Structures are given as structure tokens and as C-alpha cells.
């Protein structure tokens, strides 16, 4: 005869679970109400809203049932969170935005995938203007240049459009659902990898606001694409080849994860101080070689036929005259309070980045798990510091928490054993 869970579970664990129940129910209720407002008049939205309200009420009630019930249904908070995530993306994308993409990024990537499937075209040499019409992108959602014109090229590494190719072949019309798939992958990976008794709590930072998991994706922000492979990479920190594989995939999606590279290298070199220098460098070399190999394997077929186009496009933020647009420090310039040029922000960004690298190396013992937010900090000082450059590092910080927790747990066990 086995004892019920409640006998093993601490009072704190049950308390935390109850909190997670209430949070998820409350969040679902909030999003359900938003969906009701956004989609009133659409019968399917009303039905979905009723389901969300029903699930919320159920989870509310269950949060205050006896501990044995709470523990038995410990995974229940996932249900309202995932339900509202999918429903809200649908309502915002299909009803509020009427199916239009709200970024040129997704429009260009989807169009690049179509061109690749239909004509085998290299998107780096193509004009993407037609995509705006095809996906009803509004002028306000384009990337303006200082000349008054707009960016009309595909500006990301090749996996950013190749990832959509199977879905184009399957006939999917809205690639936001691919982003949702990647997000579901992120949520479930974190959930399953998290310590069992704290799992529901792990998800709360992702849903502290609707932007990260709902609004940005519904608005066609494509960062979920690199977060998932980088999340896998983060769980493979002790295995350089797997780390390099997943990190290479993340880098082949978008440029944002490129900025974590020096910190990963330092992590690999400094993680075991007891080893000799050569032994410490070897994992870093294996990681770097795998990353480069994966990145080139995906990008070379497009890079080789027209290297100038590939480099010109992928390095767009550094080479094109993009206007300053930011929720970071450079927003002061955007409103005319700080009359400095892009080069000022580039110098400050580079300095902050350098300082973070040096400090990470010197204070590795203290900062070991903190490095995931460092690119977000540095990018906040750049001339284009958009919120998605920062907010999408949150899942990676949760990985750090999990790894830290597990390391502490292992240390405690070792101490107890000795």
C-alpha cells in the first residue's frame, strides 16, 4: 500500500500549487474577457470564451479543495494557460487583425518560403514588396529607412524561412500557428524539465502579462522560432556537441541569439575550474565547431550563389539606414530629447556588451547562471531596442533557474550523503 502524495508533500508545496491554480484561473479569466471584447459578434469566440470561463471557475474551485485533490491534479494549471494562449492568438490574429500580418518579418519569411517552394528562388536576391500585399501588412508595421523608403529584403538567416517550407507545402495559410507550435514546445519543455513539485510555478513568469506568449505572436513577432532551439541548447550546457547543434539551429533562425555566444564560450571554459586549460578549451572548441557547421550547413546553399546579397541582408541592422526605433535608451533620441546619432548607441551597446563579457569571466562563480539576460541588457542600449529583444530571454532564465535548482539539490544530497 502506497501512502498518498499529501503525506510526502510539504505544506509549502501545496501552498505554491494552490497559488499556481489561482494565478492560471485568474489569467484565463482576464484573457477570456479580453477575447470576449475583441470578438463579440463572432459565435465561435463566444463559445471559446464560455469554455475559458468554465475552466477558470473549475480551477478556482479546485485551488481550495483538500491537499490530496490539489496534488492529484497538480498539472491542471497548464490547461487554462494553454487554452487561453491558443484562443487569444486566434482571436487577436483572425478577428482583431483580420488575418493580416503585423510585421514585415513574418510576411517576408512566409513569402520567401513560397518563392523557395514554387520557384526554388534564393530569397536574399528577391524583392519582397509583393509580400506586403499578399499578407495585408499595414504601412505602420513596416521598417522605415532614413531615406523615407522601407526595407524590402529578407533579412534573416535561412532557417527563418526554411522552417515554414513544410507548412507551405501542407497548405497552411497563416504561419502564426507555426509560432504557436514553437511556443507550446517552449512551455511544455520547461514544464517537463522543471522540478516536479514546482512545475506550475515555473510557467507564471511566461504569463505575467499577455505580450510574451500571446500578443507578440499574434502580432507576427517571430522570436519563438529561436527560443525553442536555444532552450534545448540551454539544457545541454554540459554536452558541447548537442549544445552546438541546438545553438547552431537557433543562430540559423535569427540574429538575436548570436549575442549569447561569448557567454556560452566562457561558461564552457570556466564551468570546471579544476581542469587544465587544454581540457577546459576542448569543450568550447567542440561547441564552436558544431555551431558553425550547423549554421553553414543551413545557410551556405543561399550564401554561396550570392554572398554579397546574403551578407548585406543578414547584416541589415548594422549596414542599412534603419531609423531609430526603441523602447530602450534610444527612445530619448526618438522623441528629440537626446540629439545623438546611431553611432552613439552602437558605441554604448558595444561597451556594455564588452563590460558584461569581462565581468562574466571575472565573476563567473557569482554570475554563472545570470548570463541569459545579458544580451537583453546590451541590446537595450542599442539604437533599435525593441521589447522582443529582451522579453524572449525569459524562458532561458527559467532554464537557468531549473539548472540552478537541480545543482543545489545535488549539492544538498551530496552533503547529506557524506
Amino acid at each position: 500500500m502506497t501512502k498518498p502524495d499529501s503525506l510526502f508533500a510539504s505544506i509549502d508545496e501545496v501552498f505554491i500549487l494552490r497559488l499556481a491554480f489561482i494565478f492560471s484561473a485568474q489569467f484565463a479569466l482576464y484573457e477570456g474577457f479580453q477575447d470576449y471584447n475583441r470578438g463579440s459578434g463572432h459565435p465561435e469566440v463566444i463559445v471559446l470564451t464560455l469554455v475559458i470561463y468554465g475552466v477558470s471557475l473549475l480551477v478556482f474551485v479546485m485551488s481550495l479543495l483538500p491537499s490530496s485533490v490539489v496534488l492529484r491534479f497538480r498539472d491542471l494549471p497548464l490547461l487554462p494557460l494553454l487554452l487561453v494562449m491558443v484562443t487569444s492568438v486566434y482571436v487577436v490574429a483572425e478577428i482583431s487583425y483580420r488575418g493580416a500580418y503585423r510585421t514585415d518579418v513574418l510576411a517576408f519569411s512566409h513569402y520567401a518560403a513560397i518563392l523557395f517552394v514554387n520557384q526554388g528562388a534564393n530569397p536574399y536576391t528577391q524583392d519582397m514588396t509583393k509580400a506586403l500585399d499578399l499578407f495585408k501588412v499595414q504601412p505602420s508595421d513596416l521598417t522605415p529607412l532614413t531615406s523615407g523608403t522601407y526595407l524590402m529584403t529578407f533579412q534573416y538567416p535561412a532557417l527563418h524561412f526554411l522552417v515554414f517550407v513544410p507548412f507551405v507545402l501542407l497548405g497552411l495559410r497563416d504561419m502564426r500557428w507555426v509560432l504557436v507550435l514553437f511556443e507550446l514546445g517552449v512551455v511544455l519543455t520547461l514544464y517537463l524539465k522543471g522540478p516536479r513539485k514546482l512545475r506550475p510555478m515555473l510557467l507564471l513568469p511566461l504569463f505575467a502579462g499577455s505580450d510574451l506568449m500571446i500578443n507578440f505572436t499574434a502580432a507576427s513577432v517571430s522570436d519563438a522560432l529561436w527560443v525553442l532551439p536555444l532552450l534545448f541548447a540551454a539544457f545541454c550546457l554540459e554536452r558541447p556537441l548537442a549544445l552546438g547543434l541546438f545553438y547552431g539551429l537557433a543562430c540559423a533562425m535569427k540574429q538575436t541569439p548570436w549575442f549569447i555566444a561569448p557567454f556560452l564560450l566562457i561558461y564552457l571554459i570556466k564551468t570546471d575550474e579544476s581542469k587544465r586549460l587544454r581540457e577546459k578549451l576542448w569543450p568550447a572548441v567542440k561547441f564552436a565547431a558544431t555551431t558553425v557547421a550547423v549554421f553553414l550547413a543551413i545557410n551556405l546553399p543561399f550564401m554561396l550563389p550570392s554572398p554579397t546579397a546574403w551578407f548585406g541582408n543578414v547584416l541589415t541592422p548594422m549596414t542599412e539606414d534603419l531609423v531609430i526605433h526603441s523602447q530602450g535608451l534610444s527612445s530619448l533620441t526618438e522623441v528629440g530629447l537626446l540629439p545623438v546619432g546611431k553611432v552613439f548607441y552602437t558605441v554604448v551597446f558595444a561597451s556594455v556588451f564588452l563590460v558584461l563579457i569581462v565581468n562574466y569571466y571575472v565573476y563567473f562563480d557569482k554570475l554563472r547562471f545570470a548570463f541569459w539576460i545579458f544580451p537583453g541588457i546590451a541590446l537595450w542600449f542599442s539604437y533599435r531596442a525593441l521589447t522582443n529583444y529582451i522579453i524572449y530571454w525569459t524562458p532561458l532564465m527559467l532554464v537557468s533557474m531549473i539548472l540552478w535548482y537541480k545543482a543545489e539539490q545535488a549539492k544538498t544530497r551530496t552533503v547529506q550523503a557524506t
Partner: protein
Amino acid sequence: MVQSRASEDENGASNLKRVRKLTAPLSAVFLILVAGFAFTNLQAKTEYPPPILDPEFNLWGSNPTLGGKTPMVWELEYEKSVGDQILLQETVTADNKALEIQIFQDGSDDNLTYVRLGQTIDGIRARALFDEEMGIWVLLQASCACKGPISGQGSIFEIETNDGTHTLDFLFVETAAEVSISPSHRTIFLQTSMGEWGYHSIDLVGQYRNAQWKPPDRISLSIIFSASGSATGWHTAYVHGFSVTKKTTLNSIRQHDAMFSSLPVTILGTPLAIDQCTEPSQATYLSGIRSSGTLNGVCHKGLIVDCSELGRSA
């Protein structure tokens, strides 16, 4: 031997300790110095968004209501009766890429047929608009009376700005006229030769200053083309694009003179000596064409200097 190794280790540890002690404060000092240096030395060029977006009508998107494609960035508004037609298209006319606006007025009623392409300019873009010089390349075709002779006023082609309180209408007309003034509305007539490309300065700053209006934080800028109910037939106007350039000083005008003198020019009006210019600081050069200013050291105040090499910039 063992003692010396121990001493080396001790030194290493002590160095490491010193590095750890100094890195954080030195980082802070480094960042302050870099930010200070960058702030004092890298202020010269700011990259603000341009006041006018898509000034040369490069972006076109489908318009299911009107049919065909229309400029994406420019908000389209139009009014027409059942038999009237409005056509917008990208074209090349007289060697210049242009937005072509065509109106067919069938004359079946008295209603005005008009098309407006506009955008709202606010914040830093509005401020830039009032800090810089705006001009426009236009070509106005003589109306084609397909159903008999053109009657009434024919078509009206203009640039309109509206800040919510004040309106400026810059009308392209064959015969120049005095500025028409009311407390919140001014109409400026810009002499335009039919069938020829012409560059016109849109002097927002001057008009606001003369009217003693405060430069606004938000303004709408529109291209309007209309034909009255009596103006039956096809009416066509072309816009090559807007230019917004940094204001020029008198010195830079003189420098431009040297470069500009080789361009073939037609001077309309009587030249004055430069010292006869009463407001030389207002002299302007705009993309190779100027509405007033100096040419080869001679002032042409209030006159139009035409350039036969369209699109060539000084």
C-alpha cells in the same frame, strides 16, 4: 621548490583577488567615460525618421474598393459619381517615374470628383518638416474634353496641409495670383506650365511665420486632385515625388552656384544684383531648382528658375 610553488600560488591568488576587486568599479568608470566621450563627440548626426514617408510612391498595394493598386503608405480618400472614374498608377512620363492620377468626370451631375492621398505627420517628423525645406515635382496635363469642350474651372491640383486648426492650400495653376488669406486658411498659387515637369517649393515655414501660426505637433499632408461636375472629360496630374532637404545657408547657396552654373537654366523674370536682395537668408536651393535665390552671384528674388535637366540634383 615546494615553497616557491606555494609562493607563486599565493601571488596568483592575490592577483586574482585584486582583479576581482577592481573589475566592477573599473567597468563602471569605463562605461561612464565611453558614454561621456560618445555623447560629446558623436552628436553630429541624428537619424530621425523622415518627415514624409514613401515620398516617391514606391510602395503599392491592392485596393479592393477602388480596384487595382494604390500607394500603400498614402491614405486614399475619394469621391465620385457612378459614371466617374479614378485611376492611380505608377508610370514613367517624360523620363520620370511618377504617380499618375487620372480623373474622368462624366458630368452627369454637379458633384465634385476628387481624390486625396494623404499622410499624418507628427512628433519628431512634424518638427523635422518645419525645420527642413519641402518641395515637390509635378506635371499637370491639359484636360482632355472627351465629351465636348471643357467648361468651368477644369481640374484643381493642389497640396494641402491641415493641422486641425489651420489649412494651407498650395494650388498648381497656369497663372500666378496673390496669396488668398483668411484667419485659418491660406491659398498659395504656384505657377505651373502645362505639360512640363516643374519643381515647387512648399514653403510651410514661411507661410506659418507670415500668418503668425504656431508650428503644430501634428499635421496632415495631402495631394488633392479634383474636377468639378461641369469639367467633363479626363484630367491627369503626375507627381514625381516630394523632397525634404536640410535648409541651406547663403554660403552654401554660393557654393551650390558654382556647381549649378553648368546646368542649362531658364530664368523667368528680371535678375537683381545680390545686394538688392532684401531677404537673402530666405533664398533657397532645392534639388537643382530654386524658387528664389542667387544664380551666378545674381539674385532672382521671388522668381522661378527652371531647369531643363529634370531630376538632376546640384
